[in-house]
């Protein structure tokens, strides 16, 4: 029995005998939905405006000029297309960190779940305890250490620290425990398969929903990371989108209209920066929702 069938069976189990659907409840939830989508709606509207309209026209509806396309064009071409550069950087950092981090977590989680060795439990608790370390406590010493080995101001300065996801390890351990039956491992052993072959050819496939979940959450964490790159990078051509946008925002504020009217670029850039993640979540929702299903419930 694979994890996917287990979990999707759970997800589709039907509890409603007949139509118990409630209109008041639906309306209430839709009201909340309006709250959660309102800022994004504003962002979209704002992306269609010129600077003048941004401050002069009503914020939640279109102004007479519809400048979305010209705003996007300016955003993508400003300063020799530095925004595209930031977008690609972000993609590189996030995908590498997420892929690597999910793989480390899958290997480790599987190891912790399926093997007994001295120090298994204390090591695992140590990793979990590390979730509580404040980011600043790490960022500054990491910066100093990285600068000694020449890693500051390189992509590694962002990728390496992002590879560690204690929550990912936790999730993968739980997931491996429930999704990979011991009997299957034993059977593979009897067939003479090596331990790592078992992992890559048998177990990993069953771990996929958990793997994708960790992948996505690490992706989001790296994509949205602001503090680490803020400290680690000096060179604007290495910035990820978050730092780049905050930088534009600061520049827009400090220079008024002087350096080419950056306000619409900040707004449009913000809109463009969230689109890829939303698409990723939509496309992969089957996986991450079932991945969380197992991880969320057990301790």
């Amino acid at each position, binding site marked *: 029995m694979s994890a996917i069938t287990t979990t999707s069976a759970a997800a589709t189990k039907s509890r409603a005998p007949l139509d118990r659907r409630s209109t008041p409840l639906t309306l209430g939830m839709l009201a*909340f939905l309006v709250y959660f989508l309102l800022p994004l709606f504003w962002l979209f509207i704002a992306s269609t405006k010129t600077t003048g309209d941004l401050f002069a026209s009503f914020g939640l509806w279109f102004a007479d000029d519809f400048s979305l396309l010209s705003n996007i064009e300016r955003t993508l071409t400003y300063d020799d297309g530095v925004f595209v550069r930031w977008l690609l950087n972000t993609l590189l950092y996030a995908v590498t960190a997420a892929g690597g981090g999910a793989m480390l977590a899958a290997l480790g989680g599987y190891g912790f779940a399926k093997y007994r060795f001295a120090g298994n439990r204390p090591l695992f608790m140590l990793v979990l305890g590390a979730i509580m370390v404040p980011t600043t406590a790490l960022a500054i010493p990491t910066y100093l250490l990285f600068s000694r080995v020449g890693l500051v101001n390189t992509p590694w300065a962002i990728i390496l620290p992002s590879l560690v996801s204690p929550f990912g390890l936790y999730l993968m351990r739980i997931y491996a425990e429930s999704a990979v039956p011991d009997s299957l491992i034993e059977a593979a052993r009897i067939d003479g398969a090596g331990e790592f072959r078992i992992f890559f050819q048998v177990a990993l496939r069953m771990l996929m929903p958990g793997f994708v979940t960790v992948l996505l959450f690490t992706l989001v964490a790296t994509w949205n990371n602001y503090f680490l790159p803020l400290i680690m990078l000096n060179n604007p051509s290495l910035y990820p989108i978050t730092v780049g946008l905050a930088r534009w925002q600061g520049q827009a504020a400090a220079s008024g209209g002087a350096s080419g009217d950056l306000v619409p670029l900040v707004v449009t850039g913000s809109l463009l920066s969230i689109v890829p993640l939303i698409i990723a979540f939509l496309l992969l929702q089957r996986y991450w929702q079932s991945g969380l299903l197992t991880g969320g419930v057990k301790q």
Partner: protein
Amino acid sequence: MTPTATQAPPAGTMGGRLRQHPHTSRHAFTGYLFVAPFMIVFVAMLLVPLGYAAYLSLFREQLIGGTVFVGLDNYVRALSDQQLLSGIFRVARFFLIQVPLMLTLALCFALALDSGMLRLTRVVRLGIFIPYAVPSVVAALMWGYLYGPDFGPFAQLAEEIGTAVPSFLGSNLMLFSLANVVFWEFTGYNMIILYAALRAVPSELYEAAAVDGAGAWRTAWSVKIPSIRPALLLTLIFSVIGSFQLFNEPNLLQQLAPNVIDNAYTPNLYAYNLAFVSQELNYAAAVSFILGLVILVASYAFMYIATRRSRS
């Protein structure tokens, strides 16, 4: 955690300590090989910097006089540092304002989604979750505009009907305004975790409750919520950590309200400014450690309370 033990995957999937591992010690070495990559990166990226920070926190580097070993002086100073203490109290207040509401609503949303009484479930679920995919930089920026006292849409609407909105970015409301941004970002995330946990509760339990004649509310209260207690605890712990480490949102809103959000507004902001503006790297390390300790104690306290409750 008995309820989950009856769940579909084969027996023997529960807590490591109860289970008979099928492997003999000849596999122990392989176990190390599996966890080694993670642990190596973990040690290099977490423990080493942490140890280095601990080391740094025992020194004081001065503009005049260079670096001297000062033992625990930095910690002693931190404990009587009014700016740090008020920052810690502020994030504690932030926690109290924000987290109960966020988790209660996240739980209600999850229950509503799970109840089968909702139309448009998929739209609602994704719509509420989407803010989680928005970087906090962008979230702070958007809400910064929305809060704007002259040109923000709330202010514009209020002006239309002849009143004025309260000053969202003023010193009285700032903490609530920040709480709102964080609420907006993370309610959906918590909802999804809780919802996933609810979906995994075996349906036999509900059926048993239904046989007993329990209504939807009663089932939710006495069956569903108790059985997802571990997931609730998880979201609570993450919220403790997130609240006490608050940095991005106040750092970005500081541009809009520099006299409301001062450099010690949250402990993390304080540590950052100590390190990068005040050139007190060593003291910043000590402050971070104390913050970590506060988080540890708070998280542990919640875990303790929760596990005691579940036993009684």
